[in-house]
């Protein structure tokens, strides 16, 4: 493997790992804020206890999200310095806005929320967690705007003398049609993860300790499953819109998602296909007629361009070379994203149904406990692998090939050091984090009924939130 491959593997590993924590954080903080608001408005103790319980799990999770996010910002310069030179003028702006508008907000108000339980008036303290929610939303928006620019560059001109893209319209970058559909899709997908997490944890308690805090966890189960359900509808609608925008700006990605080699009109969607990788022979396939046409164009009879004709068109436009992404990878990740996502929505419906009107969840549901929070998370991961590998061979679509972005002076040895180092460190932290998570989950609501204690006058009491 050369420096390019190593740098790509490092980006893939660190980004996929980082994104295990991002959707949990985005949704769990909002659900926690919702629970705290419910407590503030109703005064019911169960909401306070849930706020503290899920809030603690949120804090364990966000710690990992923050530290792995640091690597993201640094590695653009470390491994991809020519990319940074090429796009910094455009891409740097949303990144800087993310720091200025989002990270300061999140980090400052998290500190206030953790340590401010007894020091701030109730309403101000509640406001703090909502500021964190705002911070996570802004952060998601700006980073997705930056990513969307790589998918569909807008608001810039190419400066040949400097050999770089230069920003001409920041507003165009922030209202890129790709980010306008990607942002809701990503946020709804994140809420599927958080909802499933809340529901899964509650389900575990209801099944393993049916007598302890039953009512509280029943509420949590219903809240979590409802969040999954509502979010999954949002995911489906925004995903459909996204498919149409993608067909328009990156037709090759849509063709690759379907492994559609020849242009079809109307085009059918294959649920499952076994065939040769170059598309020359199809062995077995389940197809839904007209569906791909609808997904791609909004009309059941719409024309969808195939990989071969797009390849010809791109060669005319950009010169000789392969403009095909890894087709099996895009084909399967696209299907798994949709399939696993739908499965988690189905489980949420089933949970709401079996626990309706005070019914206890059936014990065999225990098998759903571990997979439930993981399913939407896996779907999220497949979605990102699809959207990022589907853009290849471009780093910035139509402008900068991936191979041209890598740092020219960086050695393979340096990248191997950091690749192995980060992977080993992330692996070790995954063990620590998972153990702590499971321990905290098992601990349940114990201690959450006591008033939160961060009062500096009594420092020998164990602190439930603080260090």
């Amino acid at each position, binding site marked *: 493997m050369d420096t390019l491959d190593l740098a790509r593997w490092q980006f893939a590993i660190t980004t996929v790992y980082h994104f295990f924590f991002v959707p949990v954080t985005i949704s769990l903080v909002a659900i926690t804020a919702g629970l705290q608001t419910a407590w503030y408005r109703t005064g019911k103790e169960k909401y306070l206890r849930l706020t503290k319980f899920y809030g603690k799990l949120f804090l364990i999770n966000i710690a990992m999200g923050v530290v792995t996010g640091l690597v993201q910002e640094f590695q653009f310069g470390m491994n991809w*310095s020519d990319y940074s030179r090429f796009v*910094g*003028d455009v891409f740097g702006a949303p990144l800087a806005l993310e720091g200025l508008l989002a990270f300061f907000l999140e980090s400052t108000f998290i*500190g206030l929320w953790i*340590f401010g339980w007894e*020091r701030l008036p109730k309403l101000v303290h509640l406001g703090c967690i909502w500021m964190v929610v705002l911070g996570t939303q802004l952060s998601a928006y700006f980073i997705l705007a930056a990513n969307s620019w790589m998918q569909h560059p807008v608001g810039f001109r190419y400066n040949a003398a400097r050999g770089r893209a230069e920003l001409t319209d920041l507003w165009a970058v922030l209202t890129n049609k790709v980010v306008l559909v990607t942002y809701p899709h990503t946020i709804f997908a994140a809420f599927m993860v958080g909802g499933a997490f809340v529901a899964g944890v509650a389900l575990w308690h209801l099944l393993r300790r049916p007598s302890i805090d039953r009512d509280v966890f029943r509420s949590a189960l219903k809240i979590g499953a409802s969040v999954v359900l509502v979010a999954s509808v949002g995911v489906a609608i925004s995903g459909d819109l996204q498919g149409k925008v993608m067909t328009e700006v990156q037709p090759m990605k849509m063709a690759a998602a379907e492994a559609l080699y020849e242009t079809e009109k109307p085009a059918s969607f294959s649920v499952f296909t076994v065939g040769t990788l170059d598309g020359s022979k199809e062995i077995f396939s389940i197809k839904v007629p007209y569906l791909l046409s609808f997904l791609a164009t909004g009309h059941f009879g719409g024309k969808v361009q195939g990989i071969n004709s797009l390849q010809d068109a791109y060669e005319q436009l950009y010169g000789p070379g392969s403009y095909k992404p890894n087709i099996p990878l895009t084909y399967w990740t696209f299907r798994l994203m949709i399939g696993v996502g739908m499965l988690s929505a189905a489980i949420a419906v089933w949970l709401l149904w079996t626990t309706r009107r005070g019914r206890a969840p059936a014990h065999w549901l225990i098998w759903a406990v571990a997979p439930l929070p993981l399913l939407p998370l896996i779907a999220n991961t497949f979605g990102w692998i699809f959207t990022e590998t589907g853009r290849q061979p471009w780093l910035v679509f139509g402008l900068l090939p991936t191979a041209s972005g890598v740092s020219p002076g960086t050695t393979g040895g340096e990248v191997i050091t950091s690749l192995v180092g980060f992977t080993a460190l992330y692996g070790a932290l995954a063990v620590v984090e998972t153990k702590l998570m499971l321990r905290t989950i098992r601990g349940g609501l114990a201690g959450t009924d006591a008033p939160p204690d961060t009062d500096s006058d009594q420092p020998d009491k164990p602190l439930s939130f603080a260090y």
Partner: protein
Amino acid sequence: MELTTVWFIAIAMLWTGYFVLEGFDFGVGMLYRVLGRNETERRAAIETIGPVWDGNEVWLIMAGAATFAAFPEWYATLFSGFYLPLFFILVGLIVRGVALEYRGKRDDPVWRSRMDVMIVVGSLLPALLWGVAFGNIVRGVPLDQAHEYVGSFGTLLNPFALLGGLTFIAVFVTHGAIFLALRTTHDLRARANRLATRLGVVAAVLAIAFLLWAQALRGDTASVVIAVAAIVAFAGGLVANVLRREGWAFVGTTLAIGLAVVSLFVALFPEVMPSTVAATSLTAADAASSPYTLKAMTIITAIFLPLVLLYQGWTYWVFRKRVVAA
């Protein structure tokens, strides 16, 4: 003023803010095991930085992101050239951040002492390596015509840069000890105060040597004056510390770190990455983004940065009460 200069100043201010703020929480991170004789004292020591360290670290993220946006060439050259030091800084910041958050989440001495090791190492390593990195930025590194770094990891470990690393550690530890004395009570406060004096003397010697050497390498009248002011502020801080005027002592070390960083940036300008190979230095003008980008960022920053300062300041006000350590 021309926007390239404005953004050079902005980047300098972000680094200054970062080292002033994270400087004391690095210091506390390196010290609390030594100063805190029991779990209560240690927890109190960590609690002094608990609500603020995460916000302090965002100053680094901002410095990085602002450099990316305003000086892409600088960001590219610096981050790819200083590859391994930055990797180790990241490792340090990762283990430290996780350990600070996880330490109190389990009531188990073995768990806590592991987290303690991670916090100490995670505070020491970045402090040392930022010193090495800034030493090298001021001293200059070999760059080729395309402003690519052509040295090795060994090139970065020169005596001047290593002195920079030791200076950063010593100054941050002093800054942290004074912060602890300012924010705690009883024995812990007294011990932190005494240690600050002893460490402060060592730090002062190192800092004087480093700043003078830096000025000899690349100084002008303005940067020399600022560097001298930094040394005077540090000395003033130490005197205030001996007199148990902890607030003033902290003002002293804050000013000293701020002025010292400013003096390094003043000495640097108009270059951002001086080269030890003639005529290949990277200047602020070479590295800058387009006027449109700089203008847009200037407007947005002018609106939102005051807001950030306001709510970060408010945090310090909310947690102004001393943490009782008895």
